[in-house]
């Protein structure tokens, strides 16, 4: 079961659990039957929310399950970044900043070159001569050769072409992932976690159930291939449930060809015959009687 991905990092950001690596996202779906919810949108078109990508948000239950299996370590993103940046060696920081400036300069130069070429073509079309400026066409040729660091540093400011400010989306280059993660306590989960664990152990895929007004949607296989079988609500063993909720859930479930499932962990040793494999969780399925 050990894989090259394990143990992978789950980032804890503002009490939510994220996975950023697309390989890990596909891996946990394939091997651990955990789908999570994709959140990543396109920054320039945030209205586009039909097809989302990384990062993947995990329910606390999912994070806890992966944590308990030893497949993942939970990393507090904020403190990890703060610590790593604070103790970064000076030369690494310097190199990184210069590297960013290089990238910005290369990008700026590309834009400048295209502008000059457009201007040149437009003037040609009008039958005019290129005005004898600083000679952009001449300068492009030598600038294409790779600049050494010294060459950039020695360039006078006014000679330097347009420089873009680069905002790197990933911190992997400056904070290599080999860093020892700060391991946290197991993720806090609601009391319905035993139900989640029970269903997951039975091979079901579980996703958040808001769409059907329940806690979990329980699929018999990958949600891309199957409709869900159950609308699950977890409860504590002695938690009082309104009968109206059971009737309502049963009615809704039957209406969408699903079963309404209530369940929870038995808190005491109770008569639990027939549940020998998992004696601590009992579930009940509710369906409309049809009369």
């Amino acid at each position, binding site marked *: 079961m050990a894989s090259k991905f394990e143990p992978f990092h789950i980032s804890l950001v503002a009490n939510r659990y994220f996975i950023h690596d697309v390989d890990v996202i596909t891996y946990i779906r394939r091997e651990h039957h955990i789908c999570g919810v994709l959140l990543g949108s396109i920054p320039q078109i945030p209205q586009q929310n039909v097809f989302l990508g990384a990062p993947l948000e995990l329910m606390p239950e999912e994070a806890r399950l992966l944590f308990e299996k030893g497949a993942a370590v939970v990393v507090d993103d904020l403190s990890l970044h703060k610590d790593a940046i604070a103790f970064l060696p000076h030369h690494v920081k310097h190199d990184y900043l210069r590297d960013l400036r290089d990238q910005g300069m290369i990008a700026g130069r590309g834009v400048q070159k295209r502008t000059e070429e457009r201007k040149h073509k437009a003037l040609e079309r009008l039958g005019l001569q290129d005005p004898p400026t600083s000679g952009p066409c001449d300068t492009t040729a030598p600038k294409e050769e790779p600049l050494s660091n010294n060459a950039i540093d020695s360039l006078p400011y006014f000679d330097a072409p347009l420089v873009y400010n680069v905002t790197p989306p990933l911190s992997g280059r400056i904070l290599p992932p080999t860093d020892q993660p700060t391991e946290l306590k197991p993720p806090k989960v609601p009391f319905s976690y035993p139900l989640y664990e029970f269903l997951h152990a039975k091979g079901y895929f579980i996703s958040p159930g808001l769409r059907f007004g329940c806690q979990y949607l329980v699929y018999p296989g990958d949600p891309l291939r199957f409709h869900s079988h159950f609308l699950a609500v977890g409860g504590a063993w*002695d938690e009082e449930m309104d009968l109206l909720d059971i009737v309502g859930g049963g009615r809704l479930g039957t209406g969408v060809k699903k079963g309404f499932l209530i369940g929870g962990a038995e808190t005491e040793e109770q*008569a639990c015959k027939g549940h020998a494999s998992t004696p601590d969780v009992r*579930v009940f399925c509710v369906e409309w009687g049809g009369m």
Partner: protein
Amino acid sequence: MATSSLPPRSTLSEILSSPSSTTDLHPPYLTHLALQVQHNLEHQHNWTSLTLHTHSPVTPNAPLPRPMISGVPAQKLYIHPDEQIELIKAGINEKDVQPERMWVLPAHLKEKWTLRRLAEVFGAITKVPPSAETADEQLDESLAAEKRKEQNAPEEGSSHDQENANETEGERVEEDQHSQTAQNNTPSQTEAQKQSQIERNLKRILLATVEDDSTVVYYIIHDGLVKPRQN
């Protein structure tokens, strides 16, 4: 004057006010609830051979958590999806399937339920309810046993009996499972068929929820994971 001009009482009121409608085992409102559901099943849904159960068929002397009803519906009420497929393959109409005796759990909409109480109900019933005659016999037996107990009457003794009863129950369930697994271990059966077999052998009850306006709604509750029907 005023009382004489009242309309005659309904049949249900007659039933509820008859002295035989209460027992010492359960509070009257629970027995009345059961009788109301029984009346509804008999006259609105054409159920037959309805029986009111006060004692658990699993543990002879123990009362049920509340009075329950068993009866035979006009048509088979629950058909497992796999069984449904088999019926279609065999060309049998669902309406022609022999109905089975079912447990009915009466409840009022204003009640609160917990998982523990549901589990207690399931713990006190057998998969198939005993028929009316056997239930009566059992009741007589258990009443006789109770009388004997009252005569002998030590508190420890009763708890002892309970324990013994629990043990025998456990053995019985184990036996059931053994016979089940024996059936299941035939080599031709796949994992899915086994699962289906297990699902079909789970206990189920019909939850009858009563509203104050005398509406009764019926929902099937399975004791475990049972895949939904594709109505």
